[in-house]
């Protein structure tokens, strides 16, 4: 950490450092931020912008940028803030890391911070006639300001950006999203192939896609604001409802983050059960994505095959957790109950059945002429693009970016298990599909080892002793896990409030699908409009995970 500190202070003399927390924290003024960002990427190889967290510190508004070096897996975070609450302005880094484009739009939507030189400063989640910035601490939630409007929302045809000239004066410049002669069609928000309520405005030239404008927020539920009004144990239910196909992983992540902050040691058995649930969830998720991808291309039979095996996994969840979906199983300090007596038998059986049937899936769909024609060489994402857009999970590994957090930053018990990270080079739809299929084999491998370990485990404790009232000391923490679709991160900031039922000061969820939707425009460009469906299906995002 000290070594890194010296290197950064050589790049930017004014930077202040804080080595107290888990990662090195750098605080810079907005004036130096853009130059430092460039230097961090070019010289110190921090090429991956993991998360951008907007925070309202009452006396100032600002962002915390989490950066990862994809070679050494070092993480630092940079804090940039402004004290101007009336006209908060920061410099954009969307030209350094492409992912910052959407991330900064999110911060603008929630906090009203305008990013100078950002190409497209529009709201991302909320209606364009929304009044106020909901995550600010002084936000007025009254119904009179933002009533339930049943009149249709107008299309946003114009965008704007704030440009800084040589004298440091900032001017607002209007821009057009689409030119007058462009042919724009609307896909969504109610469209079967968008897999939920997502809307694309697609500019076409004949059948070729020229530009995709993503209009999101149709399922934005304000989870981050809700969490600020609840005690920590009550917030646990929300991560499950964001990416419901990674319910166990997301909840696991929030539990890990709170445990890290409180310094709770989780019993071995509990961690093992959690890990097994995570892998079962991954299997279930990849089976669903197989089903949806095939159905989108007309292979309805394959959809039934995928769902047949998912029922086996649902049965396991049902028996142990008492619910098929939204299991609410992990809790702070462990899991809520021990596993069902037949758990190991059921898991072994499910592994055998799925392993056997995977061959059938390949026979049914993988080699199919239509499938190959529609997926091979379509929607190519390169390794550099994947890093710049901060893509993680199967979509990034299909592009050759090795980013499996189970290997790179092992959490839980993953370093005790023998499995391979599936990486491919092609970066097309076919590769994304194949990575998922191969990951299922790896998950089965992990599950079998975990079954042996659980059988041998003599420890009966499934939950650590946790204080009745959960209180975190003042500070902030960031925890990531590998969810089904990529790295899921939780940021918690606590003010150390001594009152009972302490509430988080700020809770941010860095979801993998939010970044995935950023590459829709990139991968669909210069492809046919029909390929938009296969590309988005192979990227496999979950909409509530984007909108939160």
């Amino acid at each position: 950490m000290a070594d890194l500190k010296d290197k950064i202070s050589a790049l930017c003399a004014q930077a202040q450092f804080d080595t107290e927390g888990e990662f090195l924290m750098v605080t810079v003024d907005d004036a130096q931020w853009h130059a430092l960002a460039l230097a961090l990427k070019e010289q110190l190889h921090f090429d991956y912008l993991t998360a951008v967290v907007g925070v309202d510190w009452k006396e100032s508004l600002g962002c915390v940028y989490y950066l990862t070096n994809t070679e050494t897996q070092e993480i630092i975070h940079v804090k940039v803030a402004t004290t101007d609450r009336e006209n908060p302005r920061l410099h954009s880094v969307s030209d350094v890391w492409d992912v910052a484009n959407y991330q900064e739009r999110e911060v603008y939507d929630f906090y009203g911070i305008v990013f100078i030189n950002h190409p497209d400063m529009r709201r991302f989640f909320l209606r364009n006639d929304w009044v106020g910035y909901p995550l600010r601490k002084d936000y007025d939630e009254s119904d009179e300001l933002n009533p339930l409007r049943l009149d249709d929302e107008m299309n946003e045809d114009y965008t704007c950006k704030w440009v800084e000239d040589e004298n440091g004066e900032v001017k607002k410049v209007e821009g057009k999203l689409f030119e007058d002669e462009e042919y724009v069609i609307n896909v969504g928000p109610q469209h079967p192939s968008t897999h939920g309520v997502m809307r694309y405005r697609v500019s076409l030239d004949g059948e070729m896609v020229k530009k995709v404008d993503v209009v999101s927020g149709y399922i934005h539920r304000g989870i981050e604001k809700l969490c600020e009004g609840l005690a920590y144990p009550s917030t646990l239910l929300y991560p499950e409802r964001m990416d419901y196909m990674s319910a166990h992983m997301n909840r696991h992540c929030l539990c890990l983050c709170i445990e890290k902050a409180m310094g709770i040691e989780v019993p071995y058995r509990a961690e093992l059960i959690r890990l097994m649930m995570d892998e079962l969830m991954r299997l279930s998720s990849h089976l669903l994505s197989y089903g949806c991808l095939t159905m989108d291309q007309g292979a309805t039979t394959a959809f039934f095959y995928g769902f047949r095996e998912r029922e086996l996994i649902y049965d396991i969840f049902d028996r142990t957790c008492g619910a098929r979906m939204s299991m609410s199983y992990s809790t702070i300090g462990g899991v809520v109950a021990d596993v069902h007596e037949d758990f190991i038998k059921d898991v072994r059986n499910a592994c055998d059945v799925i392993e056997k049937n995977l061959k059938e899936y390949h026979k049914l769909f993988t080699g199919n002429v239509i499938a190959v024609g529609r997926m091979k060489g379509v929607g190519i994402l390169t390794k550099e693009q994947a890093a710049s857009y901060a893509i993680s999970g199967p979509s990034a590994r299909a592009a050759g970016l090795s980013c499996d957090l189970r290997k790179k930053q092992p959490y839980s018990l993953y370093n005790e298990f023998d499995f391979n990270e599936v990486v491919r080079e092609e970066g097309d739809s076919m590769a994304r599909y194949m990575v998922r299929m191969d990951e299922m084999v790896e998950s089965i491998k992990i599950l079998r080892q975990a079954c042996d370990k659980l059988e041998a485990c003599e420890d009966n404790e499934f939950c650590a002793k946790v204080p009745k009232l959960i209180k975190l000391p003042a500070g902030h923490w960031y925890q990531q896990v590998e969810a089904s679709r990529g790295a899921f991160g939780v940021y918690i900031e606590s003010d150390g409030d001594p009152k009972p039922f302490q509430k988080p000061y700020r809770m941010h969820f860095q979801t993998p699908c939010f970044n995935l939707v950023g590459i829709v425009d990139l991968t669909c460009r210069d492809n046919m409009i029909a390929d938009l469906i296969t590309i988005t299906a192979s990227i496999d995002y979950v909409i509530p995970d984007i909108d939160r």
Partner: protein
Amino acid sequence: MEVKIKSMKHEDFKDNQYIDKLVEELRASGTNVVVGKLNDLMNWGVSNSLWPFCFGTSCCAIEFMCLGAARYDMARFGFEVARNSPRQADYIMCQGTITYRMAPVLKRLYEQMAEPKYVIACGSCAVSGGPFTKSYCVVKGIDEVVPVDVYIPGCPPRPEAFFYGLMQLQRKIKVQKYFGGVNRKEKLSDELKQLKYCGGQVKKD
């Protein structure tokens, strides 16, 4: 007259009072044999070929997909032909949270459907806002936007609960009158008019 559907016995339903009351009301108003038989024929057809309009916004949609897959197989009851266009569907199954941005879209989709049309609110989000009731941009129950026929609680509801709700809808359809007596269409459009009138600010009594 007892409302009969093939898939489930009358006494197996937990709440028969409301349907018995509806039947009583119908009896009191009375219809002639020809019109009554025509009604029966219509109801038999409509209730046994209910085409859903898939309107899945979040988690409940996955359970609905399980309903379509092999184990639960809703095709057995005539619910299977899930349509993606509101113009071809009989009922809208709202699975998931409706936010302020989505509400006008839901209303428009509802208005695009052809009569007779029904609405099922699926899952606690659609019923009342569920865990997101306190949010700044979540509609507290879709009955603020469209009239609802059947509520299916759960987060998400189990497939069995889906079936129970769908069969309740079948029973409701079975006592409907197309010819003579109260016309359902009139009643519905009145409610809709009221909704338009106040800019959607109709609150529950």
